[in-house]
């Protein structure tokens, strides 16, 4: 057809529609096609807490954003270049995020008086000058979709209209030259058992593509070449949930310990339960416990039995697990507790992201009960961090808290698949009966301060453990003051000693950098992107990112003190900053954002420049 093809280095597309419009579905498929094309990418789903808020309203809007590029991508993008708006509410809810000149593709059929009212529009923004700053394409998607399905066997008008999201997918696939064959196969597989739906969706998809190809509305097709600055290897797409699940399974395989995940559903942590429950067999078992207390109890019971016990939850569930985590700390048994953080406090905003559970992870239990805390940086990094959490738990006999968040768990990125055989082996080093007839001492420690793990079933090692303070060595109940002081010290030391095993904090610093940006968790991408922008301006700056929050890598103090200024961006009111100030007496400055949204590179760029001013 000879349309112009323009090249773009990076594009951010946002699909937005009603909760019932299937935006997550087409977003996911667009992502898969993009990944297979070799673009680097990052995605961000954004949906309401209600199962289905009233159709057509702002609270009911569900969106999916994808950022893809031919260079290394760090975030799902702050502001979309293209907004697909399936109805007025979707337009209204997302307009503020667009920059001048952005493209809007609107399903004009949905801009009825009723829908306009529901979205709170007094007049139709497609018709007044509300969108003057944007390039607006009005596409009658519903009509075109219905028309495409006309005459298909068993497809009614309403069914056909439902496929309009596939029309949008087809149109966007054309616009950015995403291959169609994979998507067609995917539609066929998805609707294999419902031929009418299959046909309607296929027709809608093809209609969308052809619309792009033929209509004069759109003059330019874009090309985003495969990313080139990508390490060689085999890739797949993962979101944080899948990567966490795979990391745990890998730890199970490399330790030889069967995995039990016991969880109670809660958004967004439920996904991990769903994911792992599909892998039964392969040594994975899952239990949906009656509540979070039972869930962590079951995981600890399994750990006592020599398994890899894991439990996953989000904020409110963490509160409930505290007592049992404290028991695990006292029992010195391996346990992995995953907190997929969400916006709090209390029920808060369950589908929104936040990093506000850090201090709780560190201090959220009575008494002195230190334990390791880790946080994952990107969806793909969840694999390694989960593996590391399990390794520490098993090898050091300790509960470990792994902090993820709603953003990580839902967003996805291409991930280089690691070589399974190259993953380190994890040694559970189960105790064996002392051969010389000496009594078994369940609280004797090795050089690292680690006690023996003797699951039931091992002959000759019968012993009793519990939550009461115990005698150093023998593990018998003890109320001796000096012993309590000793045990408190030993428990602290054995966790602190883990720092010796940790790689030093890696520093990415320009010569002459006056400012260190130190982050943790899922703001990794946004921080890197912001730092890149600052560097692009020629301003030197340094950057580092913590995976281990407790214990901290041994060189953190030195790194902090090497810079006149330190900026810590976090999605909370400054929790890591607080921790660093207490530990190192460094006047760390906090960039705090608590809005339920991920960190944006642009706002951090500003903050960095301000901090340097």
């Amino acid at each position, binding site marked *: 057809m000879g349309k112009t093809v323009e090249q773009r280095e990076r594009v951010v597309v946002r699909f937005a529609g009603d909760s019932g419009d299937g935006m997550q579905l087409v977003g996911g498929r667009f992502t*898969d096609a993009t990944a297979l094309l070799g673009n680097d990418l990052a995605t961000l789903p954004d949906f309401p807490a209600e199962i289905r808020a009233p159709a057509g309203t702002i609270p009911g809007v569900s969106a999916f954003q994808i950022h893809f590029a031919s260079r290394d991508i760090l975030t799902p993008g702050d502001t979309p270049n293209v907004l697909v708006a399936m109805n007025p509410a979707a337009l209204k809810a997302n307009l503020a995020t667009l920059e001048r000149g952005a493209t809007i593709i609107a399903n004009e059929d949905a801009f009825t008086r009723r829908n306009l009212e529901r979205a709170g529009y007094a007049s139709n923004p497609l018709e007044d000058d509300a969108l003057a700053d944007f390039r607006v394409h009005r596409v009658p998607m519903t009509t075109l979709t219905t028309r495409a399905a006309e005459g298909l066997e068993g497809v009614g008008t309403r069914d056909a209209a439902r496929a309009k999201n596939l029309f949008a997918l087809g149109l966007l696939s054309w616009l950015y030259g995403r291959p169609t064959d994979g998507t067609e196969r995917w539609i066929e597989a998805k609707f294999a058992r419902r031929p009418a739906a299959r046909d309607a969706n296929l027709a809608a998809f093809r209609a969308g593509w052809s619309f792009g190809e033929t209509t004069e509305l759109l003059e330019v097709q874009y090309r985003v070449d495969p990313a080139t600055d990508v390490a060689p290897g085999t*890739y797949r797409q993962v979101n944080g949930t899948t990567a966490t699940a795979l990391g745990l399974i890998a730890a199970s395989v490399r330790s030889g310990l069967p995995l039990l995940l016991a969880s109670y559903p809660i958004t967004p942590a439920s996904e991990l339960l769903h994911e792992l429950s599909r892998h039964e067999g392969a*040594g994975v078992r899952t239990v949906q416990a*009656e509540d979070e207390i039972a869930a962590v109890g079951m995981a600890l019971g399994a750990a006592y039995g020599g398994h890899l016990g894991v439990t996953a939850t989000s904020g409110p569930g963490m509160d409930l697990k505290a007592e049992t985590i404290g028991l695990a700390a006292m029992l010195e048994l391996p346990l992995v507790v995953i907190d997929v953080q969400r916006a709090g406090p209390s029920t808060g905003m369950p589908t929104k992201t936040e990093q506000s559970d850090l201090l709780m992870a560190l201090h959220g239990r009575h008494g002195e009960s230190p334990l390791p805390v880790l946080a994952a940086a990107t969806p793909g990094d969840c694999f390694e961090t989960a593996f590391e959490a399990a390794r520490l738990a098993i090898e050091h006999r300790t509960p470990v808290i792994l902090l993820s968040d709603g953003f990580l768990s839902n967003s996805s990125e291409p991930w280089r698949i690691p070589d*399974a055989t190259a993953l380190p082996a994890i040694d559970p080093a189960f105790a064996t009966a002392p051969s010389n007839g000496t009594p078994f001492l369940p609280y004797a420690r090795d050089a690292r301060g680690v006690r023996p793990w003797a699951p039931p079933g091992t002959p*000759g090692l019968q012993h*009793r453990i519990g939550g009461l303070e115990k005698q150093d060595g023998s593990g*018998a109940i003890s109320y001796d003051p000096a012993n309590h002081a000793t045990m408190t010290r030993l428990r602290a030391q054995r966790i602190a000693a883990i720092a010796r095993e940790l790689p030093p904090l890696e520093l990415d610093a320009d010569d002459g950098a006056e400012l260190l940006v130190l982050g943790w968790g899922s703001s990794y991408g946004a921080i890197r992107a912001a730092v890149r922008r600052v560097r692009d301006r020629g301003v030197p700056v340094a950057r580092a990112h913590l995976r281990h929050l407790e214990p901290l890598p041994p060189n953190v103090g030195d790194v902090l003190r090497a810079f006149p200024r330190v900026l810590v961006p976090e999605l909370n009111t400054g929790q890591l900053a607080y921790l660093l100030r207490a530990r190192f007496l460094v006047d760390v400055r906090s960039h705090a954002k608590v809005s339920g949204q991920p960190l944006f590179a642009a706002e951090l760029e500003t903050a960095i420049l301000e901090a340097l001013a």
Partner: protein
Amino acid sequence: MTALGDALTKADFQSDQETRWCPGCGDYAILSAVQGFLPELGIPPERIVFMTGIGCAGRFAYYMDTYGMHGIHGRAPALATGLATTRADLSIWVVTGDGDALSIGGNHLIHALRRNVPVKILLFNNQIYGLTKGQASPTSERGKITKSTPFGSHDRPFDPLALALGAEATFVARTLDTDRQHLPEVLRAAAAHAGAAFVEIYQNCPVFNDGAFDVLRDRAQGAANRIPLVHGAPIRFGAGLERGVVREADGDLRIVDVADAGEDALLVHDAHREDPSLAFALARLAERPTGPTPIGVFRAVERPLHGAAATRDRERTVADTAALDALLHAGDTWTVA
């Protein structure tokens, strides 16, 4: 360690820990009965686990020379569920108190029973909080004066058996701390039950609630008040078996003189009924252990075990590296050279 092939003895189950209950506490009798009974099972001590909650009863774990975990208050059924789900090779016993099981631990108890987790739950019911020095428990009678209820407890107590039956328990029984014959019998039945076994043991707390079960424990009164339930046998009791239980026309159960009602009218106990309604009615025959009270196995039915259907393999098999590799590569992949 016991040499294989050697017959186990009571001593094999006695740990070296000094028992720290009050003199005369019913827990001693139960401990002795359990230690005396376990050799029967022929399971080596290393394959037996006692998981307990917090309370005087919770100290039980320390005194058994098996594996033991003294958990936290009320959570032993949850801990045990995790262990039972993953370790079908173990014999797992939960020891709990009336506060531990029915107050803070109520939710885990009812769910462990519903799921039919293969554990034996022994509830030492002394109708009081022992370890915390004498507050009311959910089995304390209305009007009881305790440290926390100086004007008398005003809530109706639970009947632990009725609660268990309402929670789909597959095995429900009751016995007495000091009954050296009946207690092991009930333990034997519990051990033989494949699923979750719930055993209420009336236990005297001489310090904070002395004599609560005298009506059943006393040599003299006991004979007149214990109603032993035996599967397949007519329900009768008393020193000369002169009394019995019948089902009245209106469906209610009633205690009668056998001489009046006739032997044929007696209700024949059927512990294996699918429908728990009869067991429930028997649990209700005596609201409190202050008069004739049934003891024995109220209900014992087979049901699928928790975990059995869930897992394709009951063994501790873990995927190998090749399977992991396949899993890592599942779905769409692409290669960058």
